[in-house]
């Protein structure tokens, strides 16, 4: 059988090219790798190499010809025992590009996930715990339950945690499972992703999420995308956790909310607890989850005490928000430390006869749109509160979800309370101005309720 040598596409965008020069002539014997011709593409001159062995039977396109379409036969190769008489030239098949068949998107594009699963059970006994203790207990319980779970990060072992979250874990689990890393976020985040591919379930503590910017390539490109790129083979069960957002007086490089950065990425789940119960129940769920999880804590909350269900295995569902306060006049959606501020604002608003419903998101991605919509259907008004910047922020996403799912129920525009659009200043007065305060939330709620 004769073999047609076709005009090659030599760049992702090339559709035709110039046959600049033949480096072989009819009758020449060629073998794999022999350069046959020079081709000028839309980008550069390239060499065309032989793939098959044989004799050049006929040159179909003479050198110097411009505009030769990709896949047009340019020469014929004879294999052993053939002669030029065997040559039959086919018509050039055009490079086939199928029109894409539209795939039906899930109704809510940002994976609704397990939002409407079983309701949170009622608990009868509680104990008072700080967020710090709750996080430690969550890790310790999961490490007792599964020996593949380990903790690594800067100062997590001998120092007992830069913020004392891992207090006591080295004593209980030893240096094999509680690992002090060098200050090398890019490296240890990538290493932990590899360990997760290798069958372990790492918990990676970032001293703060500000430092995770050094590691964000591994979080997004390595952890979040590999399951998809591998056609489902390469799960990455890993938790990246640490304090997020502003602490106090640590200025711009150490005070930033990353919720919207990570919530943008398919392949990640993003959780942000407020109370100690959130912290415990969500962190345990995160460690058990087979996917990469971003777990955004808050340094100021670490020392705050809350009631935590005193159950032997308290786990919260991922993707489910919590209505922290029931109200009928305006919905306030918040997460992390801003839930506390929203609760304070709600108390003040109640004194003026405005009953606010406060939703604690708990999970940023997947987002519990159902709970938000149900609340807006009742209150007809909504404001969002976040510490991060408004531009392309979580409040903007919530606002869009309400537009798409509940616009007929709105009696007022959705308003965003967010961090001011500036890098975080150091001076105490400026820092307070930059962050959302209770008074800002009250003002926005009144504006939404037309009670300003």
């Amino acid at each position, binding site marked *: 059988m004769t073999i047609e040598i076709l005009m090659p596409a*030599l760049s992702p965008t090339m559709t035709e090219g110039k046959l600049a020069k033949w480096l072989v002539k009819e009758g020449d014997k060629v073998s794999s790798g022999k350069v046959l011709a020079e081709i000028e593409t839309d980008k550069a001159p390239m060499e065309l190499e032989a793939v098959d062995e044989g004799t050049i039977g006929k040159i179909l396109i003479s050198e110097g010809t411009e505009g030769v379409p990709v896949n047009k036969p340019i020469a014929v190769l004879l294999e052993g025992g053939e002669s030029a008489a065997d040559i039959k030239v086919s018509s050039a098949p055009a490079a086939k590009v199928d029109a894409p068949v539209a795939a039906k998107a899930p109704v809510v594009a940002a994976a609704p996930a397990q939002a409407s699963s079983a309701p949170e059970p009622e608990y009868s006994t509680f104990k008072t715990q700080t967020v710090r203790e709750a996080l430690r207990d969550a890790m310790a319980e999961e490490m007792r339950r599964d020996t593949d779970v380990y903790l690594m990060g800067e100062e997590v072992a001998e120092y007992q945690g830069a913020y004392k979250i891992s207090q006591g874990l080295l004593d209980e689990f030893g240096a094999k499972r509680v690992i002090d890393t060098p200050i090398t976020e890019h490296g240890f985040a990538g290493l932990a992703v590899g360990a997760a591919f290798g069958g372990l379930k790492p918990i990676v503590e970032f001293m703060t999420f500000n430092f995770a910017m050094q590691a964000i390539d591994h979080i997004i490109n390595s952890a979040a995308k590999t399951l998809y790129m591998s056609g489902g083979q390469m799960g990455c069960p890993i938790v990246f956790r640490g304090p997020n957002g502003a602490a106090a007086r640590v200025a711009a490089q150490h005070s930033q909310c990353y919720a919207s950065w990570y919530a943008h990425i398919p392949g990640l789940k993003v959780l942000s607890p407020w109370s100690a119960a959130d912290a415990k129940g969500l962190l345990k769920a995160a460690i058990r989850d087979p996917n990469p999880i971003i777990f955004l804590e808050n340094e100021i909350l670490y020392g705050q005490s809350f009631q935590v269900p005193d159950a032997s295995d308290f786990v919260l569902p991922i993707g489910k928000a919590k209505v922290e306060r029931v109200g009928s006049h305006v919905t306030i959606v918040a997460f992390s430390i801003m839930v506390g501020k929203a609760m304070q604002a709600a108390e003040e608003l109640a004194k003026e006869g405005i009953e606010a419903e406060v939703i604690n998101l708990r999970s940023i991605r997947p987002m519990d749109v159902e709970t938000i919509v149900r609340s807006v259907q009742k209150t007809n008004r909504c404001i969002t509160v976040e510490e991060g910047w408004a531009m392309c922020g979580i409040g903007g996403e919530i606002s869009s979800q309400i537009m798409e799912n509940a616009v007929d129920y709105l009696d007022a525009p959705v308003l965003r309370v967010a961090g001011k659009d500036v890098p975080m200043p150091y001076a105490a007065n400026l820092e307070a101005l930059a962050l959302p305060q209770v008074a800002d939330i009250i003002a926005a709620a009144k504006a939404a309720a037309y009670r300003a």
Partner: protein
Amino acid sequence: MATKRSGTKATNPSADSKTLVQFYRDMLLIRRFEERAGQLYGMGLIGGFCHLYIGQEAVVVGLQACAKQGDSVITSYRDHGHMLACGMDPKGVMAELTGREGGYSKGKGGSMHMFSREKGFYGGHGIVGAQVPIGTGLAFAHKYKNDGGLSFAYFGDGAANQGQIYESFNMASLWKLPVIYVIENNKYGMGTSVQRASASPDLHKRGEPFAMRTMSVDGMSVQAVYEAGQDATEYVRSGKGPVLMEVNTYRYRGHSMSDPAKYRSKEELQKMREQFDPIDRLRAQLVEIKAMDEEGFKAIDKEIKDIVTEAAEFSQTSPEPHPSELWTDILIDAA
């Protein structure tokens, strides 16, 4: 395809003639597979980026012959040769290149993103250098689980200037992780030569500040690579920590399919092809030691040709992924 060997003693790690024939076959499979991939790219059947391994075959064939069941392998985007050397099915690899359902990633990864847990191949990574900390993490998991496995982390001379490489070296050496770092020094990081990119072009020396054992190996000789691999695997498996191996090799084709390679002379390329080609050199040696006659070579040629033809056909007959695949494999359903 690369047969796993275990019986060779470290004191005499040279390959016997049967092993050399196997090396010849394994290298030829990669070469012919890559040539065909280049051809399919030319026909518009493979899209995007496609980085061919032609010229570097001795590196992965020599080293993976030292691997054992359960070891892990990870590399960059120039990964087709590594997959074949790990024993992955040429049909599945080629069908991934054409973006078809029968590909290793169901057509969702492409040339740079293929994986096989079964064969211990962990990608296929498109970010220069990112596979090195991940490969270090695979070694961490071997040590944590105490399963006797080790990790081969391959990267190029271009990646050798990424900071995360040195973060990885530090942790691997600090924690005595079972990892062999393999710098495939093919002399050019895309279009920039090692001399123009690296203040000290002896890349293996970069392991020294991390108290790692280092090696510099002729990557155009599969035997030299194999012998170095025997030595390195024995060292790493004994728990002494990582090894950094620089393997000096050469890539014949451009960085990717659309690279005309104007940054090097034709004479340089010609010299490497004519005098140092790892397949031609091994073939000459096999003739000289009478390990194989002309009939034997023909039989291997035919076997390889049939495998590659079958892969190319499968890669064109396997259907494109179903549109519903757009929405799968984003998250694993939690139990």
